């Protein structure tokens, strides 16, 4: 059994989980919701084993390093952290339906990684041979995943306000009856960002520390650094907006969506459209 096979199983499992969640949305059958969650957890378990196995395989190849060294490995880790945070929200706050809006992000990541990228294990180039790699990548991606979850929740918020706004009457049943109340969605959005923001801060600081250690400059306005700061500014604005009248609710939800769009650009857009220090070892081919 190889890690690559297990990653394929993971992708398939997330696909099934997403479909079951969609069926849950349509049917409102509680046991489908439970099934969706459990399938997602099964996928998470398989993926955990796969990541550990890939780590071991790199040592067997004599180029041992944590599986976080190129675009493929980072996407896989990103998907893993998204499902991990979904599990946290599901277990802690019991709002299972969030899965229908969060699992697709993880599936998208895995599908793209498995189908569109070079999956080979590569040795570490000199620039990445540092323990900072691990701290930097883990903190950044946990932060990104929290923002992904917040974005999914904000989309739910915006859908709910849009539909409730048009159908005027109080009985905006159907699809929406499963959605948590607006106040709860707003709160969950805030909570997710409360997890993401400290992690992003740590990610930026560990990145700066590493840059200073490796190049003698903790901040050089490299596009990646700048975009991470842009993301930080957007979420800092979000946190301050919440204590300002007129920014709660819809505007906060939009800020969260914009924040995640900026996050995705910081993660992928910078590599695809701009040049800089984070080439991910040319992972996508």
């Amino acid at each position: 059994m190889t890690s690559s096979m297990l990653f394929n199983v993971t992708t398939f499992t997330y696909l099934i989980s997403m479909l079951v969640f969609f069926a849950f949305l349509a049917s409102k059958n509680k046991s489908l919701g439970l099934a969706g969650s459990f399938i997602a957890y099964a996928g998470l378990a398989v993926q955990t084993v796969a990541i550990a196995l890939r780590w071991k395989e790199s040592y067997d190849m004599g180029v041992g390093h944590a599986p976080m060294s190129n675009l493929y490995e980072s996407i896989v880790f990103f998907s893993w952290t998204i499902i991990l945070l979904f599990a946290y929200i599901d277990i802690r706050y019991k709002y299972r339906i969030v899965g229908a809006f969060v699992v697709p992000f993880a599936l998208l990541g895995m599908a793209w990684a498995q189908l569109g990228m070079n999956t080979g294990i590569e040795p570490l180039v000199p620039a990445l041979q540092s323990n900072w790699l691990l701290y930097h990548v883990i903190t950044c991606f946990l932060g990104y995943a929290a923002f992904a979850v917040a974005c999914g929740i904000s989309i739910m918020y915006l859908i709910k306000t849009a539909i409730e706004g048009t159908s005027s009457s109080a009985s905006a049943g159907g699809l929406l009856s499963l959605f948590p109340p607006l106040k709860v969605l707003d709160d969950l959005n805030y909570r997710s960002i409360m997890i993401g923001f400290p992690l992003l801060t740590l990610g930026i600081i560990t990145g700066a520390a590493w840059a200073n250690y490796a190049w003698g400059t903790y901040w050089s306005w490299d596009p990646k650094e700048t975009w991470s700061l842009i993301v930080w500014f957007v979420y800092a604005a979000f946190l301050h907006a919440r204590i300002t009248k007129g920014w709660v609710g819809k505007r906060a939800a939009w800020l969260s969506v914009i924040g995640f769009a900026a996050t995705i650009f910081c993660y992928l857009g910078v590599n695809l459209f701009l040049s800089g220090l984070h080439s991910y070892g040319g992972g996508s081919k």
Partner: protein
Amino acid sequence: MATTDRSFITNVWDFFCSLKLTLFLLISLALTSIIGTVLPQGALPPEYVAQISPAKLQIYSKLGFFDMYHSWWFITLLYIFSLNLISCSIKRLPHVFKYISEPTLILGEGLRNSFPLKKELSFSGPVEKGVERLSAFLGKEFSTPVITEHNGEYHLFAQKTAWCRLGVYVVHFSILVIFIGAIIGSLAGYKGFVTIVEGTSVNSFEGRNGQNMPLGFEVLCEKFNVEFYATGAPKEFRSTLTVLENGKPVPGYSQVKVIVNEPMTYKGITFYQSSYGQASEGGEHYITVTPRSGGTPEKIAVREGVTATLKDGTTFKLLEATQEVRAFAPGFSGPAARIEVTRKGSAPQTFIAFKNYPDVNAQRGDALIFGYEGTSAKQYTGLQVAKDPGVWVVWLGCALMVIGIGVAFFMSHKRIWVVVSKGHARMYGNASKNQAAFQMQFEDLSEKFHEIKI
């Protein structure tokens, strides 16, 4: 007149204290920062200058877009941001200190009704005994209460981690500390670059603006090595450096290995492995020529691009040489040279002569076997040179920021009041953050509270 002055100052003050300004600044900083990630920064590449219209080029340069993070308007935004941070803190901190040092000891009717967390207990004993019992209970289960008598009722007030309300201000302060560290670095620090040829030493380096800057000591490059993985990807760039003072090696700084991610620091100046290359001095390459029929090999020294003539009239030219052939000839490693051999009266032949593969060399050529022995040309190492006395201030700021965020996001100021009057006691709870967790704690407390016998 006095009143308009007054109101003008108040207006300015309110402007700098306002949260709307904060939001405006954060969003402006985010939006304007995008410019510098899309346009090239610093020295413009000629291709870029060629493709952009002169008018655009002029407007962009005037607006400082090509060094936007140091442009007057971006720096101004950062200054206003700092002023905003300082003003907000000056305005709000006294309230927060008062909140912590002078807590609401007496819980009025209005607040009582506003708290969702409450629990009632009836008892038959005297009020004083109730106060004593409940005070001991709070002291044991939560924190020691302050007892105040008011209108015949006793108010027991206990709180935990009131200071965590300061977390936000620690975060704001940490941003200023980081700015101060950055300013120290830009005033008292410097960055530069130096190249050292193997076997030679330098006592100065080239600063950012191209000026020559003295080191105050010498750095000798003993050796430079590159290692590759089997795939051809680079594995390690390694300079072996020795620091010299008055021409003598400094103890502990002799033969120091400097690789990417492992710099060397001496007297506050740090050297980072950055690039490498072949020095132009020396530059002789050694080619061996062996008759296939046997006999002693002849060693010939040539320079790149130069043609040499052998005894039998055959000529050969060294086209290029490398000390690591892997990138050009997958599956092979080590030094190699590409040579063009012309036998008398026949067309020129081009092939690669290796140092490590005599068998492969033997398969080429006709009557003569060509091999490559390496070069006398030296390599140089390129090192980034930096000194930044402000960096520790920056790390202090970062540490403060992490601690501040931890406190502000994950700790909450928890307060419990127990109002005791004849026959019953009512307990109220409030937390500044994470209501769900506090609710559980309050319910736990309520259960024990309910079992108290007075």
